[in-house]
């Protein structure tokens, strides 16, 4: 295998994707290890190596003496062709062993559009695709990550899903596997289902009605009725890699990723991450300063990105930035903020920290009218945005990017007009700030709303493909006479399929397999995505995808993912949905008043804001 690999590597694009051997990669003595895990990332190396979760779990598992974790990524299509031509199984980067040699193969599901790559990687590993076709002689196939919060479309292929944060539960799985690896696959799965946060789909009998809701549901063999997500408490002391793997090749996020907080309580009603990563937990400034220095020493990177869902919300962000700059600036190390809140404070902060000035700043007002921003609970006003862009132009940036969503629930023509009007006001702010006319640029990016499980909008239908296309065209026409405004939009077919899978159920397993057999790969890549294949796959299985994307669920319906418990009370989501329809804002629970999402009492956890004011959540007003 080694020899064949050496022969084919010079003939594929970017061979560094497949060589391994990077700085800080860990190769253990294979035969001395009890439990061998392959971390499988169903996208290319450059994307997977930009994923902090991989680095964290790699560190967590390899810190144990009895376990190892190696990495494998989805081979790009040229490499897939080579591997299949030479009958080489998919292999891990570290020890270059076939995936079938591992005890556990652990996929991360970051995005629904990677699902066909999961199937493809199983197939390239020479493993039976379906869980039912595998036994104790095959690796246990597990999967986690945000898209595991509605795991149903992959239920036939994955033996067990991990719901929630992986740092601790993976250890529980290793401990269990060590003592029960000799059991039959069925017996092992029953034992796994007793671990909190582990969902074994084969232990659930589910039937669906024609409207897509669940008509009958039964957990068997003692599996819990609801699988409750795992969440770390004492986040400040959570394991964090000070020796992350440093790729040879340029990757998407080619810098230190220092996670300053986890979770976000702003409560945007479309946002799944805002629910599944609750509660907000910050690391202390001391911990962050120590980790930053170690990371620079151990990686040699010259940039630290302060990552989280909303970094400018970190309670002591300004003192943190000042401290990090004091410690690291003389070493030529810069700091970057991956996303900016829509306000002047964030722009000032960006101006202070960004040593290497990027050409543009990005803001996400998400919706064009105040009415619609209130519907989604964005909590941003036009004044906030104009302050932010005025501060940006004043500080020397001459280009800004604005992110919007179209197709939000209850969207009217005037909400679309609002997007165009806001873009023009931003442009005018640039002119008023005397930005050179040749360099001034406003980029408007419109993605299509995708209803996601566990959000206040989970019951909402997606706009039809026709509506989305019409809205895109409407905006394009409205903005086309403004030469300094560039308008981008996302492929609506991709958003449509994303909605189908995001709210899908087990009946989609056959569609996924058919689409994969027809050649669907890398569906998240616009150059690879081929909607025709999917269209055929739906037709061959007599499934109308529109029924998934366009269905409106009722509050009383049992939803296909209702047995997955993200900690936020369904009654709260209903309350939030009603407030959305009434255009009423719900404040951030950090601001002091607990709106009662129910997560803290249910998971026996509290927001952690070390260095901030002490925090006492109120009781759930719905109970």
């Amino acid at each position, binding site marked *: 295998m080694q020899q064949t690999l050496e*022969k*084919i*590597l*010079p*003939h594929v694009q970017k*061979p*560094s994707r497949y*060589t*391994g*051997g*990077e*700085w800080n*990669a860990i190769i253990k003595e294979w035969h001395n290890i009890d439990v061998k895990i392959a971390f499988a990332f169903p996208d290319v190396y450059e994307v997977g190596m930009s994923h902090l979760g991989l680095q964290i779990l790699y560190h967590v598992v390899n810190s144990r003496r009895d376990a190892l974790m190696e990495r494998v990524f989805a081979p790009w299509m040229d490499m897939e062709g080579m591997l299949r031509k030479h009958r080489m199984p998919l292999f891990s980067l570290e020890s270059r062993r076939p995936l079938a040699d591992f005890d556990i193969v652990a996929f991360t599901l970051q995005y629904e559009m990677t699902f066909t790559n999961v199937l493809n990687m199983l197939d390239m590993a020479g493993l039976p695709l379906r869980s039912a076709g595998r036994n104790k002689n095959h690796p246990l196939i597990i999967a986690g990550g945000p898209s595991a919060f509605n795991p149903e479309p992959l239920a036939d292929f994955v033996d067990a899903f991990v719901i929630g944060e992986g740092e601790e539960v993976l250890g529980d799985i290793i401990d269990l596997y060590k003592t029960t690896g000799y059991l039959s696959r069925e017996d092992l799965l029953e034992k796994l289902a007793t671990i909190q946060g582990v969902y074994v789909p084969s232990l659930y009998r589910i039937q669906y009605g024609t409207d897509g809701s669940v008509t009958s549901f039964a957990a068997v063999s003692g599996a819990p009725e609801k699988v409750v997500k795992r969440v770390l408490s004492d986040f400040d002391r959570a394991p964090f890699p000070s020796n992350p793997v*440093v790729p*040879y*090749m*340029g990757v998407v996020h*080619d810098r230190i990723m220092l996670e300053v907080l986890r979770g976000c309580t702003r409560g945007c009603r479309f946002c799944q991450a805002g629910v599944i990563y609750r509660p907000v937990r910050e690391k202390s400034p001391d911990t962050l300063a120590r980790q930053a220095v170690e990371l*620079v*020493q*151990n*990686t*040699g*990177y*010259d940039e630290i990105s302060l990552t989280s869902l909303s970094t400018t919300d970190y309670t002591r962000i300004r003192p943190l930035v000042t401290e990090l700059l004091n410690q690291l600036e003389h*070493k*030529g190390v810069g700091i970057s903020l991956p996303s900016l809140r829509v306000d002047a404070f964030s722009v000032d902060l960006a101006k202070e920290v960004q040593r*290497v000035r990027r050409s543009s700043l990005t803001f996400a007002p998400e919706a064009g009218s105040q009415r619609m921003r209130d519907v989604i609970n964005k909590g941003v006003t036009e004044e906030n945005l104009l302050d932010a862009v005025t501060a940006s132009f004043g500080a020397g940036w001459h280009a800004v990017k604005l992110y919007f969503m179209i197709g939000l629930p209850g969207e009217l023509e005037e909400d679309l007009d609002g997007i165009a009007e806001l873009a023009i006001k931003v442009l005018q702010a640039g002119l008023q700030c005397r930005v050179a006319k040749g360099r001034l640029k406003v980029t408007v990016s419109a993605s299509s709303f995708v209803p996601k499980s566990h959000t206040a909008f989970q019951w909402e239908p997606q706009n039809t493909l026709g509506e989305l296309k019409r809205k895109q065209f409407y905006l394009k026409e409205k903005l086309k006479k403004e030469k300094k405004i560039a308008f981008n939009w996302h492929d609506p077919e991709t958003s449509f399929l994303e909605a189908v899978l995001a709210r899908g159920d087990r009946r989609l397993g056959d569609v996924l397999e058919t689409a994969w057999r027809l050649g669907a790969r890398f569906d998240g890549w616009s150059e690879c995505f081929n909607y025709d294949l999917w269209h055929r796959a739906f037709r061959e299985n007599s499934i109308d995808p529109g029924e998934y994307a366009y269905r409106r669920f009722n509050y009383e319906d049992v939803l296909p993912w209702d047995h997955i418990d993200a900690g936020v009370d369904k009654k709260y989501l209903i309350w939030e949905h009603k407030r959305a329809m009434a255009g009423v804002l719900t404040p951030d629970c950090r601001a002091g008043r607990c709106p009662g999402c129910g997560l803290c009492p249910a998971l026996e956890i509290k927001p952690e804001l070390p260095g901030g004011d002490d925090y006492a959540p109120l009781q759930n007003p719905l109970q």
Partner: protein
Amino acid sequence: MPRYRIRYSKKGPARFISHLDLLRTFERAIRRAGLPVAFSQGFNPHPKFSFGAPLPVGVPGENEYMDIELAEEMPPGDIVKSLGGALPGGLDLEAVFQVPDNSPAIMSLIDRAGYTVRLDFNEPIDAGLFERCMSDLLALPELQVTRTNKEGRKKTHDIRPGIFKLEGVVYGDVAVLEMEIKTGSAGNIRPEEVIRELTGIGNLPVAEYGIHITRNVLYAPGGRSLDE
């Protein structure tokens, strides 16, 4: 600022590092090693080091060169120790020596390169035929090859004056070639060009993926060593 010349090898997984990624890899290794590297002036300062002739992706190099400027003098042995310990798998320091501060850039000194090439054929090759191919090629007064530039325009070049040495031995269906050819900013010949012409003369059946190139060494004009 004191200048050091570093001779290193790039093999194993590291042979697939592209030239651009190699810059990044060394920059990070230098920072991990804590070398007191000198920085360029300007808005976006970067560490001062420069490479000799880039290696094609996938071709291992036994003796490659780079120059690095430090802010203070350091015994070369200390550089070997600190930087050598900070390099990822496949990159190894072979030697470090100080060069005069004002010596010309390493890139401008490189004039030729020595390669070992293993050729796999689909069938055993007659040794006499292979010998003849080599002597016929060397006997040519000129050897025009066609190259396509970035804009897609084709241009011919005479590579014969840049072939300084070409020797080889056949072992059944494998041949091992040693060649020295022109390399550097003043003109460059790719070893594949020589191989294509050579195997073309005798119509030799090279196997798929059958060309294995290693760059052994880089020379200054006249074949002089760069280790000075």
